[in-house]
């Protein structure tokens, strides 16, 4: 590793590019096949088969969908504000992907004598053997997930259509109210961990043979965080911004072709991110039995946890009807917010007496 750029070995840059590519392709493929998995799972839950014709058991369905959307006509309404209309899907999509930069998806692996921590925004100090990552990782994720709402609001506003506008307004109101409870729910995790760095949080959960998960210490917070996250990413039963029955298709009514697909990619990418975050904060991240001996098991555990949580999302979608708007606000402000505040107080009191 003779060549150094800006005081870092060449291998650092190669590893970084590799990690970015792997994470990006993983999220992209998961997004594509989440649509397929969702249709299959919901189909079977309704005693149907789901897609069966494109490829073996419909396995090529996401590709067929993607190709179809590419060839659809690109429509920009004449009354729409063109620039905002074009940029809105990007604003929705990009934060969904860049959130993955701080999520640790494995321990430290060694490639050709160079140690690589499996987290995009991190660096291992070879001398001390310590992994440094973004020390405000969770804040970064909260910031990025709240940026996602801009895409939706902008789409609703720029479309210049009443359905889109209502969808956008609903989305902003819903996301803001649930982000509050989601943020407060993870505060109780920080009270236990004492750090905002996701890498540290995962390391702390490695106790008890990889099962010292925060979900056992903070079951209520985990539960509330998952519900709030569902609401924040507009998944059923909180998919009011795109309630077909009331708002045609909500904020993406006027969108077509790839721009429409981008909103859906953003939605599914957000689902992946939220599941990854829940797995990291509450389910021990990449921790599990034998990760110390076999470092490559870390990513396997992490992906398994993410996929299980995504299955739960789809399971919930197959089960629950959409909430009414006042029920949504009631749940957000009068149930989840006080509960998360209580949880913080209880964590504080119990933590004080234990220590």
């Amino acid at each position: 590793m003779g060549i150094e750029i800006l005081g870092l070995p060449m291998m650092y840059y190669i590893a970084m590019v590799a990690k970015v590519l792997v994470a990006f392709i993983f999220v992209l493929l998961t997004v594509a096949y989440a649509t397929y998995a969702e249709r299959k799972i919901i189909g079977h839950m309704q005693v149907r088969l789901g897609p069966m014709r494109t490829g073996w058991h419909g396995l090529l369905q996401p590709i067929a969908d993607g190709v179809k959307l590419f060839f659809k006509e690109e429509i920009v309404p004449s009354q729409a504000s063109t620039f905002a209309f074009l940029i809105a899907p990007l604003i929705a999509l990009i934060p969904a992907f860049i959130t993955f930069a701080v999520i640790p998806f494995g321990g430290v692996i060694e490639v050709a004598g160079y140690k690589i921590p499996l987290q995009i925004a991190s660096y291992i100090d070879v001398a001390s053997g310590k992994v440094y990552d973004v020390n405000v990782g969770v804040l970064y994720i909260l910031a990025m997930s709240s940026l996602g709402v801009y895409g939706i609001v902008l789409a609703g506003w720029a479309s210049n259509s009443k359905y889109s506008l209502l969808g956008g307004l609903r989305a902003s109101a819903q996301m803001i109210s649930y982000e509050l409870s989601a943020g407060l729910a993870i505060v109780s995790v920080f009270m236990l961990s004492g750090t905002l760095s996701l890498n540290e949080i995962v390391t702390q959960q490695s106790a008890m043979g990889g099962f010292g998960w925060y979900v056992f210490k903070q079951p209520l917070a985990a539960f509330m965080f998952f519900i709030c996250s569902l609401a924040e990413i507009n998944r059923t039963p909180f998919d009011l911004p795109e309630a077909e029955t009331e708002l045609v298709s909500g904020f993406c009514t006027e969108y077509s072709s790839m721009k429409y697909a981008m909103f859906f990619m953003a939605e599914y990418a957000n689902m992946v991110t939220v599941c990854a975050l829940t797995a990291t904060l509450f389910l021990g991240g990449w921790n599990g039995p034998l990760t110390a001996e076999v470092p490559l098991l870390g990513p396997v555990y992490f992906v398994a946890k993410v996929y299980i949580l995504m299955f739960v999302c789809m399971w919930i979608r197959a089960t629950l009807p959409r909430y009414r708007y006042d029920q949504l606000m009631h749940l957000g402000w009068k149930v989840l917010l006080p509960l998360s505040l209580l949880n913080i107080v209880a964590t504080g009191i119990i933590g004080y007496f234990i220590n």
Partner: protein
Amino acid sequence: MNPITPIINGLKITLSHLFKKPVTLQYPTERPKVAQRFRGLHALNVSHNKAKCVACYLCPTVCPAKCITVEAGEDANHDKYAAKYEIDMLRCIFCGYCVEACPVDAIKMTGEFELANYRRQDFIYTKERLLEKK
């Protein structure tokens, strides 16, 4: 009533359905089994190599959709027979009254249900097309 239990119960139900055998029939490759008394396309019964129909006009009379056209004729043995027997499948409502009304058991309904066609005139089934296939 606590709001969590119904949600859990619902989740249990959907999970149990996940492992049930789907009822979907992969239609063009998998064919449905038509019931014995299914009322599909009509067929004229044949006996001694000719249609049993004696052109008594009971079926066009009872037909509520007025889709059957019969014209009587006289054969070499001075017997009455249906010189023309047409059913307009665009009008037919598949009620089966023609089968019930027939005194000589000359008409029946088969399990054939794929009656789509490209031209309107193809929906008018003439006697030749209606004769039962052995």
